[in-house]
């Protein structure tokens, strides 16, 4: 197993190197991605310019919420660069190639390209998170450190699973990028605000259907010592790792059945 991982690492590294080929263009695009994603946060700053609190949350708390989701979403965006190209892969027959190699299909698609330029916006997310952490006074007990780390890992797993599960639909429909993007990019956008600002039915969807609440909101309630005005069960605050695992399992199953579909239809 360790050896398989090292093969993937090697392939991934070569993809990353390929992006460095045009150094100036690379640097410019990283900077561009950094500033472009900052505009995103400016929208939140504008809100706080007019209001001291947003639904009971301070600027620091929202920055914490935003940053923890953004940094992991951008990382998943890098890891899942090729998911976006799946329809092209399928149409051009490149997926046949994937099936003739002695490696798993998902690993091959993921390591087929890694758009490292997104480190720009990932840095922006990390910066906002850092600001958030510094503005809110969290008492970093070992339990809180564990929940914090588990929240970040869980967020990455949840976003990656959403990418896989929604893009795999392309095997049946040929092109489902718009739908997939509404889950991934749309999902990321929803997690930038405290979940209780949304209506009751939306909150329920984010807790129990598309579990975006577990990306950052529920664990942040615990970390920041907040209460959910909508009164969600307190146990949800510690459920992120379990939810992430469950979602990863579902995404894996969807992917496997998508590949099975491809291998029986050839398209």
């Amino acid at each position: 197993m360790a050896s398989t991982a090292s093969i993937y690492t090697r392939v991934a590294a070569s993809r990353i190197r390929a992006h460095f080929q045009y150094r100036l263009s690379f640097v410019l695009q990283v900077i561009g991605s950094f500033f472009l994603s900052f505009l995103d946060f400016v929208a939140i700053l504008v809100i706080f310019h007019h209001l001291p609190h947003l639904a009971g949350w301070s600027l620091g708390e929202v920055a914490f919420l935003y940053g923890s989701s953004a940094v992991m979403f951008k990382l998943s965006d890098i890891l899942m660069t090729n998911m976006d190209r799946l329809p092209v892969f399928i149409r051009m027959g490149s997926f046949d190639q994937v099936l003739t190699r002695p490696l798993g299909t998902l690993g091959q698609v993921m390591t087929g390209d890694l758009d490292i330029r997104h480190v720009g916006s990932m840095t922006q997310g990390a910066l906002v998170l850092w600001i958030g952490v510094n503005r809110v006074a969290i008492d970093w007990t070992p339990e809180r450190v564990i929940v914090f780390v588990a929240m970040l890992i869980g967020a990455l797993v949840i976003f990656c699973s959403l990418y896989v599960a929604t893009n795999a639909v392309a095997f049946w429909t040929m092109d489902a990028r718009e739908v997939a993007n509404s889950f991934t990019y749309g999902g990321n956008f929803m997690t930038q605000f405290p979940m209780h600002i949304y209506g009751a039915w939306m909150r329920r969807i984010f807790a129990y259907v598309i579990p975006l609440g577990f990306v950052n909101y529920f664990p942040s309630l615990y970390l920041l010592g907040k209460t959910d005005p909508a009164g969600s069960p307190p146990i949800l605050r510690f459920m992120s790792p379990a939810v992430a695992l469950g979602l990863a399992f579902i995404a894996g199953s969807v992917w496997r059945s998508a590949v099975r579909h491809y291998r029986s239809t050839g398209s």
Partner: protein
Amino acid sequence: MSTVVELRDIHKTFNVYRPKAGARGLGRVRRERMQVRAVDGVSFSIDRGEMVGYVGPNGAGKSTTIKMLTGILVPSSGYVRVLDLEPTRQRVDLARRIGVVFGQRTQLWWDLPLHDSFDLLRHIYRVPEERFRVNLATFTDVLELEAFLATPVRQLSLGQRMRGDLAAALLHDPEILFLDEPTIGLDIVAKARIREFLAELNRERQTTIVLTTHDMDDIEQLCKRMMIIDHGRVIYDGDLETVRDRFGDESVLIVDLIEASPPIEVEGARVEKVEGPRQWLRFRRSEVTAASLIAAVAAQAELRDLTISDPDIEDVVRRIYIRGTGR
């Protein structure tokens, strides 16, 4: 001799959707499902060290068969074993032991130098370092890759890329090499080079080679055994000479007469074309020998020169398709 590929009564059916006939406006959204039998009961086996050409018109089921042999597609029904493995279930194990080249796409990384692609494949296929060095040196030499080993794949010509792809598919010493249209789009020189290489590979390493092609020269120069597939069925499986004898016994005698004359009438042949003093007479070798025909013609008119043109294999195969002859 050991069998490396075995197919028994393989079927592959695809669902194809098309708009309902006569539907207008919103009705177009409704579709009709049609079943297309891409491969319809194919059986054959291939022994180690064979070099087999798989030919047929577009859509005959060639690529579908190759895809089932390489583990890409799952057959609808039937029995497949390649190197005693079931391609669908043991895809990864099989992938380590076969090489696959699709003429129209590359398995190289387009933005990497050829050498870097090879190096990645070395790790993907877990080729021992020593083995890799020897193989790379051999292929670099035979396929003359040296000049562009450091060139990114996207800058290679089609012929160079194809040579690179062949080397890439062989670095892990596959026991069987599957080639789908390996010479498509190449110029004559590049084609000759690829054929030479494949013949040598088969001879020197006893690598079993299965190739699909449109180009009958590929078959003529490489394969002792040819399979012709049409409408998803194997309509011929045997050597090249037999196909010529069985389906291509029509030859053409071209005579240059001293002076132009009306079409010559001789038994067993008919004049196809007259052009001044030159006439084309088509005849069946099974009915009349060339010698007796020439004698008969010479008795009627004075000859300056003559040639006999045998049917080329392409012609033969075309006729087989048209006839759709079964066994």
